[in-house]
């Protein structure tokens, strides 16, 4: 499909894929998908389960290689050998499970795997003061005032844990932040908090890739929307070219939803089920059945 919308800023995008495809044996996981991510923009990747979202992230983060197409980082063609290469190129993924250890303190989690040390030889030790200071500063930039850096991460709320993971990625040099379904396991309020962090990351000049199956979360924060369905690109829009209703309809596949609502109506013996059928129909067509 189209290469997306007109570039809003000059220069090459931070990250761009052109007609990439990925096959697992004879299963087409991803076919001819193109998207780009620019600094200070949020690109939402939308799709239902099995749409190819995770295959796309895994290609972007270096877990999988791609079979066809091009992958460019700041205009240069790349072929990552592994997640380490992607991280070195400034692409960081905040995974669904956040890669934090619940029983460890916030500062230990923040620096886990890249611990700051001082001293030499056998006296080499963690620079605890520096670690706590940096962690505090970085979380303050996200609007979180940590009272006790020794607090275990497990006692934080889901949204706050997300913030720790994001702050960590940013501190260690991420230019492109991939958020894998950051709101899927969260309640309404916590989701709102995460969306705030998404906007904050954008305002700090990062390119954000926000992967979700919820258009209600994507639309308010997104600048571009990339829709995937069954491994193929269904559409790629700038915010000005689409609306929430349109996105929702496309995502769920309007016709499919209508069919579902009809089936439900037939089966509906309870008023609650009829209500669900009506809502589905509304989502599908924008007008009550």
């Amino acid at each position, binding site marked *: 499909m189209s290469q997306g919308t007109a570039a809003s800023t000059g220069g090459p995008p931070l990250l761009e894929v052109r007609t990439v495809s990925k096959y697992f044996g004879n299963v087409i996981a991803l076919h001819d998908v193109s998207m780009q991510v620019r600094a200070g923009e949020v690109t939402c990747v939308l799709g239902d389960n099995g749409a190819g979202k995770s295959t796309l992230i895994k290609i972007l983060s270096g877990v999988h290689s791609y079979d066809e197409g091009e992958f460019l980082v700041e205009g240069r063609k790349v072929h990552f050998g592994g997640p380490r290469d992607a991280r070195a190129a400034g692409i960081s993924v905040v995974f669904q499970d956040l890669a934090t250890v*619940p029983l460890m303190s916030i500062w230990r989690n923040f620096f886990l795997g890249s611990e700051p040390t001082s001293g030499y030889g056998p006296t080499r*030790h*963690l620079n605890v003061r520096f670690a706590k200071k940096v962690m505090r500063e970085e*979380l303050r930039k996200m609007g979180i005032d940590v009272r006790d850096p020794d607090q275990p991460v497990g006692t934080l*709320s889901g949204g706050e844990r997300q913030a720790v993971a994001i702050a960590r990625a940013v501190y260690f040099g991420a230019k492109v932040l991939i958020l894998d379904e950051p709101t899927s396991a969260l309640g309404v309020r916590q989701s709102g908090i995460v969306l705030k962090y998404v906007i904050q990351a954008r305002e700090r000049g990062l390119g954000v890739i926000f992967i979700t199956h919820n258009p209600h979360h994507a639309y308010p924060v997104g600048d571009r929307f990339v829709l995937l369905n069954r491994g193929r690109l269904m559409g790629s829009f700038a915010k000005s070219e689409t609306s929430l209703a349109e996105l929702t309809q496309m995502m769920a596949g309007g016709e499919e939803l209508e069919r579902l609502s009809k089936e439900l109506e037939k089966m509906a013996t309870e008023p609650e089920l009829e209500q669900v059928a009506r809502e589905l129909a509304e989502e599908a067509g924008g007008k009550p059945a």
Partner: protein
Amino acid sequence: MSVASTPVPAQAPRAKGAGTDERVGGVRLVVRLLQRPELGALLGAVAVYILFASVDSTPGHRFSSIAGMQNWTDAASSYGIMAVAVAMLMIGGEFDLSAGVMTGTSGLLLGMLITRYQLNVWLGIVIVLAFAAAIGVMNGLLVIRTKLPSFIITLATFFVLRGMNVGVTLLLTNTVRFDVSDNAPGFDSAQTILGGTFLAPYNFQDAVLWWIALTVVATWILNRTTFGNWIYAVGGDSNAARAVGVPVARTKVLLFMGTAMSAALVGIMVALRYKGIQSGQGVGQEFFYIIAAVVGGCLLTGGYGSAIGASIGALIIGFAQIGIIFANWDPNWYYTFLGVILFLAVGVNTLVRRRAASARR
């Protein structure tokens, strides 16, 4: 003890504008103390000490005298050295059931090298430590490669070694004991450092000093080094640790080497102190190490615990072992007593940690 893996969600760090007054004081000292894994063990140790000091039936109340202290530190030290290493491994999320029998294997190997092959004692010690390191590497690699629980892997190692200890000793000596000749070159210096005593009229065992030193080193490693951070991480959530670049396999293998080499140290000490070692040495002791570590606040599920706590746990075992004798009770109650202590410690630790997690808001 497996409860704390889902800590109570508190709301401590809040978004800006939630009002700053409430956190001006920071976290209170009491709460900070309650968070320490070793607190329950410390309270328990005080209680057990008071109990045995008061039921002491020896003339002159030996339990609470310095001579009594020599007795219970002696009993606690060999448990303590092992408990510290086992605690580190448990924090790293694994078990080592072969730790007990390894003390026997190491001591017997030293006896064999010295008595049968007339090696210098120090050279023998180096070989025994290297052998133990190899056993540790084997345990670690087997656990990582097979992805089987370390409980099963080290249970297998335990039984293999247990049989070998008796079998090889019988074959070579026609007895169930290996003597360590005190005529061997280097014996005197080695015994002074590893199997001797200090503080003259009371004669505390050298092992006590080794125990304290190892506790200090382990505490420093756990709390102040990168490797310590990795130990907590691989035990707390090895997938998360791997995702941020922690070498999970290397960390675990090193921890298995730690328990095996600590066992070698204890075995060497026993062999030098008693100038010989029984082929059944150490069998069954592995559970005491685990009890000490758990009483000291280690979570069975990994990711939480402390070396100081494990040492306090070993001290409680020492109190009980000596206290029951001094109280003139039937020594068989020792096991029952430790079982009750383990039960209580698990309960108290769980409670304390839950309270600490929810008290901070």
